[in-house]
């Protein structure tokens, strides 16, 4: 199941704080779908080092970042 988190209206670094909190609470097998007004580049760096993979879609002002553990089975959107 995809957990959704919209951080579009939060000032830096709250989007990072909220996203990392949400990932810590993510049940095994779930993914986090993050919605943000800008590309959270520092988060990507942290995610890479924490062992997550992510996919980015969207356009400027409305980005969707789908995050899941790197060792999870790749599967279509749930």
């Amino acid at each position, binding site marked *: 199941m995809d957990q959704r988190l919209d951080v579009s209206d*939060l000032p830096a670094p709250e989007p990072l704080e909220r996203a990392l909190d949400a990932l810590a*609470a993510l049940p095994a097998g779930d993914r986090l779908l993050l919605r943000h007004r800008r590309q959270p580049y520092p988060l990507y760096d942290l*995610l890479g080092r924490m062992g997550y993979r992510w*996919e980015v*879609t969207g356009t400027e002002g409305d980005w969707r970042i789908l995050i899941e553990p790197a060792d999870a089975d790749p599967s279509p959107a749930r």
Partner: protein
Amino acid sequence: MIATAGLSLEQAPPLNLPLRLFLTAPLFAIAAGVLLMLDADAVLATRWSPTALAATHLITVGFLGPVMIGALLQMLPVLGGVPLPVVRPVAISVHLLLGLGAGLLAAGFLGGGATALASGAMAAGLGFALFAIVMLVALGRACGGSANLHGFPLAGLALLITSGLGLLLTLALLGRVAVPRLLDWVQVHVAWGLFGWVGLLILTVSVQVVPLFHVTPAYPRWLTRALAPNLFLVLCALTTLPFLAPAVATLAGRVAQDALALGFALFALITLSLQVRRVRAQIDATLLHWWIAMGALLAAVLGWLLGTTTERIGVWLLIGVGVGLPSGMLLKIVPFLCWLHLQSHQIVLGKLRVRIPHMQRLLPNDPARVQVALHGAGLLLLSTGFVYPPAAHAGGALLALAALWLLGLLTLTTLRYRRALRALIDGAPATNPDTGSRQDAARADTVPWRGRGETPEDKCANDALSIASSTLPRQRESR
């Protein structure tokens, strides 16, 4: 799918490098405030008074310079992907040279003699020039980087020119070289320092941080692309004035300075209009500093157009913008860097069970608002001093208190960071030993806030960083 590479926190320098610049800078602002408190009459009477010159250089060399350089140490590699070469020796040298330079320059202006003045100017000039060269070399290597960096080289060039002119003026004052129309060159030096190095850097950094920290719309594209280069060209034109006939130079100088004033007024108005349209109504300390600084900038521009004294304009620009805006940025940058480094340590140590404190807990907003109130009241009283001189002494005292408060807040933030880091190092293992699941990390312990004394946490964490970074699996984004 969209590529997201190109920005790495691992390129950031060790936290102690920007922190050493940030934590000592307020000392010079305190000293400037004390000078204003003791001798406000001289400062308000003429900008050429020894006290005014000493206070000016304490602020520009001792406070403003280190804060801006400390921020760039972090911002260039993290936001721009531009790592600075030999960053540790450069940061330590610049820190020492600027501290020494500010102290000796102030002492020299206050009667310490030509040797103190010359040594101070030499130290400050070398410190600024060293950083400008390193910054320009790094930016030159990173041509075509991912971030919007085009304003940074212009600010770096302006810093180099300011430093060179400062050294030339010192040699002229000491009688080592003959510089005709010395006062004209002083104006050029001030213009490059204030509008080039400080102004262009504020402009360039604002474009990045105002939308980020205050959730505003982005600056208009024409402003981000055109304003800084055009202001730089105006400064180049201003530099030719000492070579022109005095009558022509006066007229051309007025036109150039009007253009600078209007350019920065435009920037202030657009910044304020973006902040009015911010998504969240929350007013934090940094935003209050922005409003005071932009108000002071607009007051200075209006004063310039109406022909007010340069002393008033100087107070509004140097204290309203030059002390206020960096103070506001420090209130954001220092807890942000501490949080970021804690996060990075947490990952490297694999201690995902340990919750690290959020930025608001590292530096709460209420005491930060007190700092803004002290600064704003100090600026107001100092400005009142132009019509009611006794108020200026109280203004100086409040400005010194505001800088002392700032120092206290930053020191407390650093101590909280060290306690949290210590707790992180001593904390629980990365995953639940029974299940190993990430879900268990959600029920993590919170970092305890009891101090455990000053132990070398940084060293422990750095050791862990170097060990773990060589063993952790690296995962990049899927493409």
